[in-house]
């Protein structure tokens, strides 16, 4: 029998060295008299190096260490939705009940409530032979979410020998198999190991976010990966919040990793009030929150990303579409750097550990559209915010991320200063899904969708080129056609790209409306082109009433009705020109 308890040999910040235990890598251990939770991150001779998830002040050499023999795991089962956890799945409301308003140390609370009962409805009968990952029944976790109870994937195949409908607590047995395995509503899974699936599929359906610049120009697919890098204040968090609010996913896992406490409070107070576009239920009824703010222990911050991902994978396995937001992956990388430097590892670029980019790839690779073990289709779309130091995209975390993700939404400080929000730079950003998703858009929204996108991209591209000339000679020196390009590009930027996250109506723009609005801008362009050809002076164009009206379309409740009027007005104004000739 291997010894399970040892003693503390050295303490330096969150890193503790223990002797007298022989754990496996990534085993969870309890440190000291206060039983602080930690994880073995290096084994060197008879010493085990442990990162501790809690503040280590007061821990002395000689205090006991207990090895649990288990890796860091999360509890998966009904009750995850609407929960708010810290980085290692301890419910924050529970911690508050125990400890008051501030978080002190040494609490251990279960991730799922042991007292609440759930009504289990079996989907298979006694005598059915079942495989790991197969669903054997459901629990209505929310009015809109059928939570499938699956055979844990570590189980062996077998035959159901007993199963019954009824109210159960998460740790009660709901079914037994002929080989003696007992199934509960809850299962556990180690966070650092991806949950299995049967095969990966190509992502070819867009994740509609209702954000014009994202859906129209740089769409992300369900099961895709995106990065939002941007200096401070460029709106990473607002964009993440918008995606959490509006994206058409079944479940949203939001990981606040090393960010501001007040921002988490915003999510906590707003989400229970806002409605889910698809179901009309409260947004909180599809959300799992993980909040490990910047002042909470750094090792738990490192774990929070994995905790979130494992919960997302669990819901994916039920055949659902999940959005996972990680805000911010830079804080996660910094947590790795901090631990690495305490371990006195040889640093790579900017002090980050040399394994940074492989950790980033491993994480993003857990996203994707898959066929589950139960032969359903599930998807996890991952959107990671990146906070580059000094807004410099050449730093290791941004670069390491860009090598993996397929969508790049570059936030721009210059745009932010002009209050152009969302401050997504339309020249630097890209989406590698554009082509695969074009089919979907032309079939489901409009045939000419790809052409319209291309037209808008070209116009903005031309604007950028012309701007360089304007900087030298002023816009008056340009011919009328080119001034028109500048004007139309300006309309695209201000009427279409800019979107007010805090405006009741503008906050979400339906995909059909996005198409219609851009189409109107193009119609405007086409009509004016004709008018210019007929000799109308450019200055008259700027005075068009209908142009000004078009600028407000995005704020209108009756979007189609309003645009009909605007376009009629434009036609009338053009006719007046012709008559006046």
């Amino acid at each position, binding site marked *: 029998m291997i010894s399970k308890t040892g003693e503390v040999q050295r303490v330096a910040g969150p890193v503790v060295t223990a002797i007298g235990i022989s754990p496996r890598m990534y085993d969870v251990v309890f440190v000291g008299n206060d039983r602080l939770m930690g994880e073995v991150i290096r084994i060197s001779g008879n010493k085990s190096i442990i990162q501790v998830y809690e503040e280590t002040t007061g821990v002395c050499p000689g205090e006991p260490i207990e090895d649990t023999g288990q890796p860091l795991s999360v509890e998966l089962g009904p009750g995850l939705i609407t929960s708010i956890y810290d980085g290692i799945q301890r419910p924050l409301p529970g911690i508050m009940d125990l400890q008051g308003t501030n978080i002190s140390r040494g609490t251990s609370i279960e991730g799922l409530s042991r007292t609440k009962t759930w009504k289990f409805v079996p989907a298979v009968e006694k005598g059915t032979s079942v495989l790991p990952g197969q669903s054997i029944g459901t629990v209505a976790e929310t009015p809109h979410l059928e939570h499938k109870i699956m055979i844990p994937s570590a189980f062996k195949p077998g035959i159901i020998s007993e199963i019954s409908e009824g109210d159960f607590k998460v740790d009660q047995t709901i079914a037994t198999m002929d080989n003696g395995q007992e199934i509960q509503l809850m299962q556990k899974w180690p966070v650092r190991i991806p949950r299995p699936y049967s095969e990966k599929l190509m992502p070819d359906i867009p994740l509609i976010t209702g954000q014009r610049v994202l859906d129209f120009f740089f769409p992300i697919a369900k099961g895709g990966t995106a990065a939002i890098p941007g200096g401070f204040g460029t709106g990473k968090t607002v964009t993440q919040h918008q995606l959490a609010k509006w994206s058409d996913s079944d479940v949203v896992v939001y990981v606040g990793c090393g960010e501001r406490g007040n921002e988490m409070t915003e999510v906590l107070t707003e989400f229970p009030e806002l409605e889910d576009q698809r179901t009309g239920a409260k947004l909180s009824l599809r959300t799992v929150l993980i909040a490990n703010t910047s002042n909470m222990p750094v090792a738990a911050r490192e774990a929070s990303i994995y905790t979130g991902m494992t919960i997302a994978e669990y819901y994916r396995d039920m055949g659902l579409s999940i959005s996972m937001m990680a805000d911010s992956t830079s804080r996660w990388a910094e947590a790795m750097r901090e631990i690495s*430097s305490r371990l*006195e590892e040889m640093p790579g670029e900017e002090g980050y550990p040399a394994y940074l980019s492989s950790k980033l790839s491993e994480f993003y690779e857990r996203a994707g559209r898959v066929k589950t073990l139960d032969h359903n289709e599930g998807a996890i779309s991952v959107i990671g915010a990146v906070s580059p130091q000094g807004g410099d995209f050449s730093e290791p975390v941004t670069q390491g991320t860009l090598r993996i993700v397929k969508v790049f939404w570059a936030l721009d400080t210059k745009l932010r200063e002009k209050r152009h929000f969302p401050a997504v730079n339309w020249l630097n950003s890209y989406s590698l899904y554009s082509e695969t998703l074009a089919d979907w858009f032309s079939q489901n929204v409009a045939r000419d969708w790809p052409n319209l996108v291309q037209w808008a991209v070209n116009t903005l591209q031309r604007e950028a080129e012309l701007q360089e000339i304007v900087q030298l000679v002023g816009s008056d020196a340009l011919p009328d056609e080119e001034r028109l390009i500048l004007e139309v590009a300006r309309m695209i930027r201000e009427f279409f790209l800019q979107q007010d996250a805090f405006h009741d109506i503008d906050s979400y723009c339906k995909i059909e409306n996005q198409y219609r609005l851009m189409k109107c801008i193009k119609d405007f362009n086409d009509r004016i082109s004709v008018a210019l050809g007929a000799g109308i002076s450019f200055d008259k164009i700027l005075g068009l009433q209908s142009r000004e009206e078009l600028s407000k379309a995005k704020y209108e409740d009756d979007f189609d009705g309003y645009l009909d009027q605007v376009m009629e007005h434009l036609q009338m104004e053009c006719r007046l020109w012709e008559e006046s000739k």
Partner: protein
Amino acid sequence: MKVEYRTITDISGPLVFMEATEAVGYGEVVDIHLSDGTTKRGQVLDTSQEIIVVQVFEGTAGIDHEATVKFLGESVKVNLSKEMIGRILSGAAKPIDGGPPVPPDKRQDIIGSPINPYARARPKEFIETGISTIDGMNTLVRGQKLPIFSGSGLPHNKVALQLARQAKVLGEVEEFAVVFAAMGITSEEAQVFMNDFERTGALKRAVVFLNLANDPAIERLITPKIALTTAEYLAFELDMHVLVILTDMTNYCESLRQIGAAREEVPGRRGYPGYMYTDLAMIYERAGRIKGKKGTITQIPIISMPDDDITHPIPDLSAYITEGQLIVSRELHRKAIYPPIDISPSLSRLMNAGIGKGITREDHNQVSSQCYAAYAEGRELRSLVAIVGKEALSDRDLALLDFADEFEDRFVRQKEEEDRSITETLELAWDMLSKLPEDLLTKIDTQTIKKFHPKHRSENKK
């Protein structure tokens, strides 16, 4: 009885290394008795069964192998009491105003435990500072942490003082206190603050912690933590609204780097320790509101950016933690505009929660976005004018150019004693916006324009 040990082996910079003779806790406080009878305080940074590393707050000068070390068995604590208000204390909370020691109504660990995000209440009470660029464009709310980024030679201290003097919540009379923590500032600068506090009577409601430029650098590492522990006591136990001014955080970070270097740690960017983000967060995140408690903590840290470089790690990491930033600009200062707050790079993240209908005015958000956009465009045109001259500009561009000038001259500029109400600020903005062609006001919706645009308002009256 605590035993004293004479086992110091190495002394290096601010650190003392000693052989371990008993189990000492990480973060424990130690007293070091020198042979000349003085006592210095330190803290355990690294503890093992062989070696203990202690950082000495008051500097290692005079410590030798003969010095004895006593472990106190507790982490760094501070005495707290309501009596602290009106007092001037050192960076380590010792009285330096000739008064008696602070009575220990409560003894509290200075590290403080993180506020449970679930226990936080959302900051939303508008603080009227009377400064247009803040109230109108970068609104401050109670419980926010909004730093002032500045550079050497700029009047950030004046701005901070004006803020401390004028900040108020509309229609409320509540207990209000200022906690002022100076880290490594010169005695002249400290004098300016003290004089102003005395002149305006602010000292009567302030707790002052002074760690001056010639005080031990390592002491600076505990000064902001002591100040915030005090603020937490006043806010969450005595129900006061506390404004914490921390100046200058750059000096704090320098001390942090010094310790890191002495411990031979792997440095991060520009030699600052890799954990500086976490360390700063442990300070800044101690602002906010808590459900069910009356008091609040609002933080205004002052950071002087080395070489006015906002990408320097200190301002950069700070801005990633704080809820926005106010930028004091050298360009505006050169134009003799006070307060020289440059709105373009400035930001208040909690602004939206603290403005709008029922709090300030329904048009506030849109007016502010519009001013931002128009000012940014006007400024961009300035560089164009420098090349092609005004003649090449369209009427629309000229209007924007004028807007930018007028904005700086009338909206940004105000007197040191001038306390503008939020209505005055918004009216001033409308007055300037109304000179722009109306089709440029794309950030304001039609209803709002009809209701607030001076032109339409006079029409409405007719």
